């Protein structure tokens, strides 16, 4: 009975996946699809990861459209559904849409949790819940180095350790007196802030989520950090505060209840019942002082990598993300891979300053699928099937992908549909791969099709073509209806592909 309820007892497995949020579930599904035996362990009591707790105000930032120009079970529908995990079986596709409550196309937190639990249940993703990863070490095994994962249940040994533990460890700044503040993660029920003066440190989405959610309770709200806030509307990307949280900006412009300050926080001091926040403005260096009843640090989260840095895993940035290759493998400790939101650690090309969406489900779900395939090939020797592409279908195939492929739309300039050209001219479909790998890690002749944004509002397809070692970039025109299957696009792409196809056999 215990084996059914609590699978994967401590022991040796080819792969151990840690985490049961969307990243862990997607990777487990994809590994099974590739035929790779693995164990999944999680400290949580059920599926869902951070969505079991956050966002605090119970409404997601990512949407799912129940009605869209594509069937819910189709690949094309994924472009309109940022929240469901990926599966081949039609009864596992697009699960989020049926769980919406009709009040918003942004699912509630419980609806997202239900979506992930439903996927885990229906796809029969086995997870050993209640098993906490505690320490990690390496040892030499019969087939090379393996990892020993010490958990609350015992030791696991594996050739590949895949971590999908989120970026969920609260991070506090080192400001003097910061102990008087509490972190976003410890925000209480909103009604307990009734009538209080709230000071929020941080101008990311979590800061403005709090400012929006507490507006009806707080007597005043101050949002403060050294740099000016950017909105996604200004950056014309997902960088910056999302459109759902712009109300505090309007309240700030109108001088009604919200103040948005660009200042560094010098110190927090208890003065009677209140907290005095001393500030220095970043524009002119002037000192300021704000009195508040509550100070909340919406200063982000770090990656809970436990003792991996001691094992040699290099990390960077305020979030302590691991330094990884384009296939999300630690660049300093081979064999440790990352999935889920941690996969944002591989930045890709950041073309025109637009980052990938790997920090969110709609981006990293594709990374997880690619990672499983990469492990199958590179670690377990399972060869991929790369179907032959008829040369006279190539242009249409690429433009169809540019117009409809959800991987290219959600991971712009990050993932690409790659077609390789062999010496005899045979074209093969290598599938969806990281663009950085196609450009820098592959040497064969190829075309890599992407969709890109110019950071000014333009969206357009780009074909990267390598022929005889020379790489060229071919941006195709924007199209107002975003369907790139036009005669003009066909002509331009065919011309660009001319050299790649030059040696291809006719027909």
């Amino acid at each position: 009975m215990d084996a059914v309820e609590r699978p994967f007892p401590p022991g040796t497995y080819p792969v151990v996946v840690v985490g049961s949020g969307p990243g862990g579930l997607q990777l487990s599904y994809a590994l099974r699809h590739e035929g790779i035996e693995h164990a999944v362990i999680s400290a949580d009591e059920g599926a869902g990861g951070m969505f079991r707790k956050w966002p605090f105000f119970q409404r997601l930032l990512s949407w799912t459209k129940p009605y869209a120009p594509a069937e819910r079970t189709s690949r094309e529908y994924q472009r309109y559904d940022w929240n469901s995990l990926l599966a081949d079986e039609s009864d596992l596709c697009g699960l989020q849409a049926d769980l919406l409550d009709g009040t918003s196309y942004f699912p509630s937190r419980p609806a997202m949790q239900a979506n992930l639990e439903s996927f885990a249940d229906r796809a029969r993703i086995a997870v050993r819940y209640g098993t906490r990863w505690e320490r990690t070490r390496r040892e030499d095994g019969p087939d090379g180095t393996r990892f020993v994962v010490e958990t609350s249940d015992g030791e696991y040994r594996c050739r590949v350790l895949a971590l999908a533990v989120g970026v969920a460890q609260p991070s506090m700044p080192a400001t003097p007196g910061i102990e008087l503040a509490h972190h976003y993660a410890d925000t209480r029920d909103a009604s307990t802030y009734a009538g209080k003066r709230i000071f929020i440190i941080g101008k990311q989405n979590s800061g403005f989520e709090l400012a929006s959610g507490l507006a009806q309770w707080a007597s005043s709200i101050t949002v403060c950090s050294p740099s000016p806030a950017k909105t996604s509307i200004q950056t014309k990307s997902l960088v910056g505060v999302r459109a759902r949280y712009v109300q505090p900006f309007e309240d700030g412009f109108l001088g009604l209840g919200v103040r948005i300050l660009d200042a560094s926080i010098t110190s927090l001091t208890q003065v009677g019942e209140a907290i005095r926040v001393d500030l220095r403005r970043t524009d002119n260096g002037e000192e300021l002082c704000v009195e508040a009843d509550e100070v909340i640090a919406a200063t982000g989260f770090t990656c809970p990598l436990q003792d991996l840095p001691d094992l040699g895993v290099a990390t960077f940035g305020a979030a302590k993300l691991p330094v990884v290759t384009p296939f999300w493998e630690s660049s300093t400790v081979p064999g440790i891979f990352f999935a889920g939101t941690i996969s944002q650690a591989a930045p890709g090309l950041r073309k025109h300053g637009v980052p990938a969406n790997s920090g969110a489900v709609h981006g990293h779900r594709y990374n997880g699928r690619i990672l499983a395939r990469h492990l199958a090939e590179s670690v377990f020797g399972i060869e991929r099937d790369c179907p032959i592409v008829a040369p006279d279908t190539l242009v249409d195939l690429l433009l169809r992908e540019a117009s409809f492929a959800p991987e290219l739309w959600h991971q712009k300039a990050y993932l690409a549909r790659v077609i390789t050209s062999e010496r005899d001219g045979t074209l093969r479909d290598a599938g969806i791969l990281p663009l950085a790998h196609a450009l820098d890690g592959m040497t064969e002749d190829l075309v890599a099709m992407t969709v890109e944004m110019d950071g000014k509002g333009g969206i357009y397809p780009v074909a990267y073509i390598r022929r005889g070692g020379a790489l060229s970039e071919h941006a195709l025109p924007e199209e107002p209806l975003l369907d790139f299957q036009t005669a003009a696009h066909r002509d331009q792409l065919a011309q660009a592909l001319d050299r790649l196809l030059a040696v291809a056999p006719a027909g």
Partner: protein
Amino acid sequence: MATREELADTLAGFAMFADLGSPQLLSVAGLFEETVFPEGERILRQGLTGSGYYVILEGTADVRIDGTTRGTLHRGDFFGEVSILLDEPPTADIVATTTLRCIVMGPAGVKPFLLAHPTVMFRMLQAQARRLRNANRWRS
């Protein structure tokens, strides 16, 4: 590494940001994102559009034109700004020769950043003038 405060401390030691006070440095630190590249990875690609403006915090990178190394960049050096200022693809590959820790700003942010921080613009101009002088010396 690195909180915003740590990043501001690092920037304070670089010539380009030497004229900024501490609250300004904190603000500037928040305008960039930290990013890291493993050894051997390309950061800028010769001839490909859409690069960023990078400042090296740690590590080294080679400047390669048509596969030939023409120079090495170190801590405090910056790259990518020429292609943004001219709105042209980079004329060289930048390849990490160690683990390379940088801060990066997208092209849309560069003009407003330089206009808002004229002392940084002046320091950048000085650095460019030095590069031009050295290139002219090399040619003559």
